[in-house]
């Protein structure tokens, strides 16, 4: 074999090694995080961790239920606020906005996506929290689920909007033409043909948003209050639930990891396992929801 061919073969093996690096990394992540969490699972117990609401490491209490509720609640709030806005933005960009306006709005969405989470957190601390505090409910410090949901909604907006916009654009043009030729208005065409045809892609965007929301850490720590108690309505009005302070699973990890040791540290890794499990459940249910749907042939 000539030198050229030896080089060729060597390169192939090196590249192969690079390709399987990602497999190795995923396995390593799973392995190490799980390994570090075993101490917690075996010493404290799975149900103790998952079902108890008291997190007090100093007294050997490691219940993270309150954090699970915190993460789910703030994600729910972010989806409630963010999805309509993101979907509206996507429809606007894909179907309604003239080219000149698109050239302003789309880069704006992209820029929103790139802003560091701590900047959003800071903005939340300085502007949103005082604003929420103005709602004169006793016990309302401004920090809590509401401010966090708003910040999170803004953060996941660009994620959902760009995927949804792509999905809408991928709907073949002849569906639109067919609808218009039957005497439907443009809006009827959008709601009755385009959106239904693009719904799996739009859903994929929402799932991506949910994943981002569950995984966000620093911005949440900055505005959510980080109290370890189960969030509760502050007054008789059930909506005041969102004025309650809370802590997310991600926040739990970040806030305590730097000084935690032993079982405490292991419990934080266990929190990571729970977080990862939550995200897997969300992805799996999305895939289950999309099953058996006729996929629209993509234009690209």
């Amino acid at each position, binding site marked *: 074999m000539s030198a050229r061919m030896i080089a060729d073969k060597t390169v192939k093996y090196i590249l192969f090694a690079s390709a399987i690096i990602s497999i190795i990394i995923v396995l390593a992540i799973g392995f190490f995080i799980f390994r570090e969490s075993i101490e917690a699972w075996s010493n404290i117990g799975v149900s103790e961790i998952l079902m108890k609401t008291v997190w007090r490491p100093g007294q050997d209490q490691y219940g993270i239920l309150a954090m699970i509720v915190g993460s789910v609640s703030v994600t729910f709030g972010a989806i409630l606020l963010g999805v309509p806005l993101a979907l509206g933005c996507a429809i606007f960009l894909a179907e309604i906005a003239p080219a000149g306006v698109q050239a302003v709005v789309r880069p704006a969405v992209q820029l929103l996506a790139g802003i560091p989470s701590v900047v959003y957190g800071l903005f939340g601390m300085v502007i949103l929290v005082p604003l929420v505090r103005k709602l004169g409910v006793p016990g309302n410090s401004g920090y809590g689920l509401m401010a966090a949901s708003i910040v999170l909604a803004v953060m996941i907006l660009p994620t959902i909007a760009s995927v949804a916009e792509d999905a809408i654009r991928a709907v073949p043009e*002849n569906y639109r033409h067919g609808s218009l030729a*039957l*005497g439907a*208005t443009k809006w009827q065409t959008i709601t009755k*043909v385009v959106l239904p045809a693009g719904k799996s892609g739009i859903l994929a965007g929402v799932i991506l948003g949910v994943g981002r929301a569950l995984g966000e850490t620093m911005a949440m720590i900055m505005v959510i209050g980080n109290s370890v108690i189960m969030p509760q309505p502050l007054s008789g009005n059930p909506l005041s639930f969102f004025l309650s302070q809370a802590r997310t699973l991600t926040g739990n990890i970040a806030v305590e990891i730097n000084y935690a040791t032993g079982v405490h540290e292991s419990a934080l890794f266990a929190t990571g396992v729970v977080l990862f499990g939550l995200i897997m459940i969300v992805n799996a249910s999305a895939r289950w929801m999309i099953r058996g749907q006729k996929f*629209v042939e993509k234009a690209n």
Partner: protein
Amino acid sequence: MNDSKLETIDYSLYYGKYRALKDITIKIPENKVTALIGPSGCGKSTFLRSFNRMNDLIPGVHTEGSVLIDGEDIFKIDPVALRQNVGMVFQKPNPFPKSIFENVAYGPRVTGLKDHHKLEEIVERSLRSAALWNEVKDNLGKPGLDLSGGQQQRLCIARALAVEPTVILMDEPAASLDPIATLKIEDLIHELSANYTIVIVTHNMQQAGRVSDYTAFFYTDETRTGQLVEFSETKTLFTNPRDRRTEDYITGRFG
């Protein structure tokens, strides 16, 4: 020819600076089948799309002259209302990713009909008129995209009929179909012509001869601007064309 359903007077269409159609003047008779034939690129489809203002969707298009339906200027009517009266069947069947029932019911739903019984009536009637009812009557819930090409096209015809148009525009409706499916479509066109004004663009001269009562021959030169060269009863145009270019096209000397 007394009652013309559709009419154009000195109608021209431009894509930006490029003139696609030049000074077309024609009277399309009611409840007859009129075929538009001519070599590729001569603007037949563009002309067809003028009648339901689908060209409005293309940026940079502007027109001169007038297009009339029942004597009214179509550019003064709301295009959405116009399209409820002038239906279209496309070259490639484009059923929606919905069930057969929902495809046909789409038009009536969109024009405000909510009564489910009425919708069922209309769906059945339209599918019968499109000669598809017997093949799908037990499977109305199945996706429209599951049907064969010929069936999909008949579904699109049923869909267009469900809106109760008075005119049906067909843009090479059998172009993507096999010969048997094509014949079925041609029979269908013949049946429908009793109650609807049909304008059909076709590349296939034999088809034009089989299916139409009147034929219009379009032609284009190096300028790629389409013009109407001759319009008369189909029999006459094919056996005794007046214009040299028509005769050349029919006898296969070009196109």
